[in-house]
């Protein structure tokens, strides 16, 4: 009996009217955990009941504590008929199980009903008394910390990185069980919500066990996904990186890398599936799984031929698979310098014993990342079949294992021993009568890592560390090629590093990770998107799968080409945060690749783009080409200005390219297949050195180039990127806003050509971006960070685009934090300087001349042509220290008034949400635990709720509200690394029905403003005063 869960129901408010006669409600509450249920008394005739119940105590196994959610149901008592349910609250008590996270859950939770949405709120208190169980063979893993954040959490120091952990549980989807035909939609939805909650709990527990086995104490970059495979079942899978984290005491600087060897736990062998304890709801009898023959489709052969002919014209980041058979990674380095070999061997030993040297991190502690090779990715098309035995999810496991193996081998081909920034995703297409087709994808960045973080106990650790650090100067080390230049896995153009002039670097670098903090960037970064839509014949089952696999390579190639073109057009030479998504629909495939382009100072300057006509005889055609060439050149020049890219002139020296001359000018092709056979015939003599040659041989190509140029320019004052940090901008106000936008488009004519579809798809994405810019126009200058799009083809002729972004403006902030940053940001924007590296938090300055500051502000603002209300806001408040010491009678009195105008009762805690792993301008002082929630909402009165948009709008707002409530109940004031992983929307307008499923996750944290000097924040009170204070100034 290792745990006692205690819950107390305090009160309710804003309950719905359940009794029409009296316009009141007789509410009571059922509290359920596992199989135990308690009830409160009925609080008669009130919409704001005060139950003030006793403590309900559940004595349970810690295993159950991890798996089960606490289920609170609010009901309306009815003397004559059955009691009506008002709604439910599921509380994940996992955060209470770790001693370092939250200690109590207390607060107002929205009461949620899957049919009616939020119906009032309930105040609940939950505590856990845990008796530590040191049994070796325990099935629970309490105490392992989980973080969605893909970097080392801010208030921890990493002692060891153990490596990849993964787990997968499957179950039958309650929505598809026979019983669903007789039960109500509400019951069905609730069964599903509960099941997924249970499954995530179980998954987390199992992963925790693996982590403990490896000797770690935390999972970083925890990524949990649901695959709703329809009739085939429900798969919940998760990956993460096991680490040993040390908590930093508040005084310590976060970046101290003292080498403590306290955690000398031996690394155990690769994680096994030892802990497949049966999942709770499994009732399916185990049926032997049928044929397991792997079908090697014709794709393979076509693929490889394609691969060979194209590969030679690729730049560094796109190495070929010709080298797949190259054996172990060790052999790659045989010609390399002794140091490199040493490094390789050293890390090899640390990593070799792991099955998957894969890391889900995208941000690394300094010195962790040694070299970066390039992006590696794998896709595989599968036909889904019913999961016959949920206890043995072997098929799904095997699929993913296969993919991870492939990723690993790709990394080896790049001379790297590890994959970082790794993520997995699926795209499933449901058909009515046939099996679902599913694309499994995985991608990451091949890299060399510093073994210091992998394994300890090596005697020479210190010494070799020293040498490694010597080998790669911190700011440019990671761009140096990890592979051997004489034995390159793909043709590339190498130069000496522009920074240190000692090591070779490629001309272009693609990665899935965030820009390392030490990297030197010229100018600013920007969001680059490649969009592609391909038609596909309608087909079923196997045929469908084959045709999809046939299309995939072309899609990837085209996406790559587009990215490369757009990168060159912006005169940049590296992509970070690359995310490629391919979704499958009934008659089309959608591809979307987003990344943040930057100019890395250490890499060579990119050449221009040159257009080559195929038929030079025609005069008008020539002219056409030259005008186009001019437009491209103009755009490049304009972009250089826009992104402030002015690299110092350098003498170009191309070295060590083992591929003969024609590689010198890497060429860029239209990516349709027919161009491949013309490659060798092209005369490139007129191309200027290292310029990309864009070949026009038919009208399609012209359109391609047109579309290249028609990417709408980003409006002035906006910056966007899909990484956490905007490269080239270093001054931030504390983060402001997070937005989610969902759009579904209907294509009215299915018989479209690839070109037409492409155009439409590009327009969709551009429109969404334009909408964002428009809505946020009053906040400029601002930066859209972590701008991520998700595309899906939910139905024939429907395209769903979902974007969520985090807005960080250097200016406006309603909750009043960090006005002290105002001036720097404005300087930054007004003069567009990038060398603005002043520390943003001012040391306690004496009180400031209020008036002159305001004057300065308003001049800047005028300069920036800002809106009147921004001026008002921006000019009033000054440096925060001045707020403390200098009396501001006016502001004080006004803030008093504003508090008075608030109603009595505690105001709602402001909870910020951000997809970033941090809040700019603030310091995270405590991680309270992971938030991972799954909601279903259904309606049978779609029209009355404002149509599909109205329905989804309120649902998303409700989800946000519930997430905020949970964070606040844990004592937090922000959710970082937020992501909406799933948003499945289905409608049946004929029946006036719609259903939507949303899965969100993130880390609940407490943050304080960087300027606050206190080590322990008086959390709630400080929040309130800061917000009311700010209010007084506006």
């Amino acid at each position, binding site marked *: 009996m290792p745990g006692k869960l205690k819950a107390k129901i305090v009160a309710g408010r804003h309950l719905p009217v359940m009794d029409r006669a009296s316009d009141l409600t007789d509410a009571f509450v059922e509290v359920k955990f596992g199989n135990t249920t308690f009830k409160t008394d009925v609080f008669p005739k009130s919409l704001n009941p005060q139950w003030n119940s006793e403590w309900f105590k559940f004595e349970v196994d810690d295993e159950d504590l991890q798996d089960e959610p606490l289920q609170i149901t609010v009901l309306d008592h009815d003397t004559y008929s059955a009691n009506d349910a008002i709604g439910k609250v599921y509380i994940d008590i996992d955060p209470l199980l770790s001693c370092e996270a939250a200690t109590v859950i207390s607060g107002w939770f929205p009461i949620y009903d899957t049919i009616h949405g939020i119906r009032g709120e309930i105040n609940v208190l939950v505590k856990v008394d845990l008796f530590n169980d040191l049994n070796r063979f325990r099935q629970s893993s309490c105490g392992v910390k989980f973080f969605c954040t893909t970097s080392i959490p801010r208030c921890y120091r990493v002692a060891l990185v153990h490596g990849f952990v993964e787990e997968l549980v499957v179950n039958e989807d309650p929505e598809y069980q026979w019983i669903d035909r007789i039960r109500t939609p509400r019951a069905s939805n609730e069964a599903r919500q509960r099941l997924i909650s249970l499954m995530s709990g179980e998954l987390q527990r199992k992963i925790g066990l693996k982590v403990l086995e490896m000797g770690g104490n935390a999972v970083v970059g925890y990524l949990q996904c649901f695959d709703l495979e329809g009739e085939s079942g429900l798969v919940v899978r998760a990956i993460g990186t096991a680490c040993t984290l040390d908590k930093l005491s508040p005084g310590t600087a976060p970046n101290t890398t003292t080498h403590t060897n306290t955690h000398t736990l031996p690394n155990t062998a690769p994680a096994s599936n030892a802990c497949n304890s049966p999942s709770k709801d499994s009732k399916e009898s185990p049926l032997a799984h049928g044929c397991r023959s792997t079908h090697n489709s014709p794709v393979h052969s076509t693929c490889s031929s394609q691969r060979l002919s194209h590969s030679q014209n690729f730049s560094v980041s796109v190495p070929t698979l010709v080298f797949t058979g190259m054996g172990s990674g060790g052999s790659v380095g045989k010609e390399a310098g002794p140091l490199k070999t040493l490094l390789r061997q050293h890390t090899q030993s640390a990593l070799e014993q792991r099955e998957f040297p894969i890391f889900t991190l995208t941000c690394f502690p300094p010195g962790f990342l040694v070299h970066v090779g390039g992006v590696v990715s794998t896709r595989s098309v599968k036909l889904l079949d019913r999961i016959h035995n949920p206890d043995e999810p072997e098929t799904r496991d095997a699929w993913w294992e296969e993919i991870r193996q492939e990723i690993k081998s790709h990394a080896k081909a790049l001379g790297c021993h590890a994959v970082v920034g790794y993520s997995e995703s699926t795209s499933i297409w449901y058909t009515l009568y046939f099996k679902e087709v599913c694309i499994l994808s995985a991608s990451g960045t091949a890299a060399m890592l510093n073994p210091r973080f992998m394994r300890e106990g090596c005697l020479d650790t210190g010494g070799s560390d020293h040498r490694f650090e010597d080998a790669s100067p911190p700011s440019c080390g990671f761009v140096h090629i990890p592979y051997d230049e004489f034995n390159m896995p793909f043709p590339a153009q190498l130069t000496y590093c522009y920074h240190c002039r000692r090591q070779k670097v490629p001309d272009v670098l693609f990665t899935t990770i965030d820009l390392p903090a030490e990297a030197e960037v010229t100018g600013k970064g920007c969001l680059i998107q490649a969009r592609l839509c391909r038609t596909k014949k309608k087909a079923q089952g196997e045929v469908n799968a084959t045709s999809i696999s046939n299309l995939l390579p072309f899609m990837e190639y085209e996406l790559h080409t587009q990215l490369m073109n757009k990168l060159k057009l912006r005169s940049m030479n590296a992509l970070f945060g690359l995310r490629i998504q391919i979704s499958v629909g009934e008659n089309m495939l959608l591809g979307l690749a987003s990344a943040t382009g930057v100019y890395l100072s250490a890499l060579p300057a990119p050449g221009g783009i040159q257009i080559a006509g195929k038929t030079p005889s025609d005069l008008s055609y020539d002219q056409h080409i030259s005008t186009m060439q001019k437009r491209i050149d103009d755009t490049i020049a304009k972009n250089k200005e826009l992104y402030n890219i002015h690299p110092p002139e350098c003498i170009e020296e191309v070295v060590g390219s083992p591929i003969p001359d024609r590689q010198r000018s890497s060429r860029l092709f239209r990516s349709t297949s027919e161009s491949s056979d013309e490659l060798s015939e092209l005369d490139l003599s007129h191309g200027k050195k290292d310029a990309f040659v864009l070949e026009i041989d038919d009208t399609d190509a012209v359109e391609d180039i047109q579309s290249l140029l028609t990417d709408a320019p980003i409006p002035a004052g906006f910056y966007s990127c899909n990484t956490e940090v905007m490269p080239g901008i270093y001054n931030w106000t504390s983060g402001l806003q997070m937005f989610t936008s969902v759009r579904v488009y209907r294509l009215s004519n299915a018989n479209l050509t690839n070109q037409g579809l492409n155009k439409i798809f590009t327009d969709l994405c551009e429109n969404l971006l334009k*909408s964002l810019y428009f809505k946020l126009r009053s906040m400029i200058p601002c930066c859209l960070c972590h701008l991520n799009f998700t595309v899906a083809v939910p139905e024939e002729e429907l395209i769903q685009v979902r974007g969520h972004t985090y807005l960080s403006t250097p200016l406006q902030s309603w909750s009043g934090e960090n006005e002290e940053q105002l001036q720097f940001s404005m300087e930054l924007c007004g003069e567009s300087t990038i060398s603005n590296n002043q520390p943003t938090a001012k040391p306690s300055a004496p009180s400031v001349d209020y008036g002159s500051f305001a004057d300065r502000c308003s001049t800047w603002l005028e300069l920036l042509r800002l809106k009147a209300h921004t001026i008002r806001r921006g000019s009033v408040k000054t440096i925060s220290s001045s707020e403390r010491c200098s009396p501001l009678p006016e502001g004080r009195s006004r803030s008093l008034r504003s508090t008075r105008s608030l109603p009595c009762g505690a105001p709602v805690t402001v909870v910020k949400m951000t997809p970033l792993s941090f809040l700019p301008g603030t310091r995270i002082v405590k991680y309270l635990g992971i938030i991972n929630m799954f909601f279903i909402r259904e309606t049978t009165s779609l029209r009355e709720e404002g149509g599909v948009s109205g329905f989804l709008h309120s649902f998303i707002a409700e989800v946000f509200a519930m997430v905020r409530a949970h964070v606040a109940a844990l004592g937090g004031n922000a959710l970082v690394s937020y992501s909406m992983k799933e948003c499945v929307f289905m409608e049946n307008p004929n029946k006036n029905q719609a259903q939507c499923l949303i899965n969100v996750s993130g880390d609940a944290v407490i943050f304080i403003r960087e300027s606050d000097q206190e080590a322990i924040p008086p959390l709630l009170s400080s929040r309130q005063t800061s917000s009311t204070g700010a209010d007084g100034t506006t």
Partner: protein
Amino acid sequence: MVWGMFPCHTLGPLIPVEQRLNAIPCRFYAPKNSGCSEGKGVPDPVRTNAKMSVELDVFVGNTTIMDEEVYQFWLDGYTVNDAVKVRMEGGVLEECEASAEVLRSDTMDQYRTFQMCERLLHSPAKLANQLLFQIPPHRQAMLIERYYTFDGLFVREVLGKKLSKGTKKDLDDVSAKTGVTLKSCRRQFDNFKRVFKVVEELKGPLVENIRQHFLLSDKLARDYAAIVFFANNRFETGKKKLHYLTFQDFAFCAGQLISNWTVGALDNMVEDMDVDLEKEFLQDLKELKILITDKDLLDQHKSLVCTALRGKTKAFNEMEANFKNLSRGLVNIAAKLTNTKDVRDFFIDLVEKFIEPCRSDKWTAGDMRLYLTHYTNSAHILDTFKHQVVWDRYMGVIKSCILKMYHD
């Protein structure tokens, strides 16, 4: 694969194709040829071009964002299309190179948000502790204040009317007459009714009650107090003779009446609310009749006033000539206020019996002030007149009301 190169695709395990009936939950399976997916109540999809249309378009922020301009359009009862048109003419588009569809989508988003917020705005106190929308406090205040702001023209039409269903039915006429959209009329009317219902049952000072329950600014709370007061006492304001008066004139008078003639005026800890005039006071007013019934007193009063006014105003002759009439008018109004019917006609009586005669004699506002001051003060000197306290309480309000109402 190494990205950019081509992967080896493998197909999953092959299973013989079997018929499956229910891959998509049957509740959500729409037959492919079901035709247009748009329901009747669903807003028309936005045609973006011939080949695609927007089915669904949603934009949600963690902190609810609202455009004040669009909020005003919504409050004013503009349809989405009208709002888009006005916004386009306003030149937002040039400002940031957006297209009409972007504008439309933004407007729709905002309208939806406001519609969802509307329920909360009905009980503004809820807005602060609800969890659904995270709205910064100053924005909440703005939302509430604007939601409860009303059109002067509109309120003038319903002022003093019973806030009943019948009146609500006639709102389309009011809408046609004032040019305020019907939607906006309904919102304003419902606001009046809601405030009325809430404060009706409350004790204590009216203005304070309104301010606390609806979190309104002082000014707006006072205006609402006036509306509630008028609706409760059913003052006649619609007669032609009263048309020249604005809502603000009435609001001022209402403020005077509330703070001087109601029960709460003397003792605001009193049990009763201050929407009703104090009965005892009205009863006492009857005593003032002596000023006109007693001939001596009337003459004495006249001579006192005339002495004081002589040489100070051009309209002296008219004042002297009309004194008895005017005095009779004012005192009669006072004496009759015990009748509910006469309370309703309070303003029309003031205009007919006092303001109109003065206006026809071309008194200036200064003349009026002078006259009323001396008229009030002179009564104190009358030694046989014993009702000084009631007189002051009465004349104080009458004087300020008339001064406010005395304009063109």
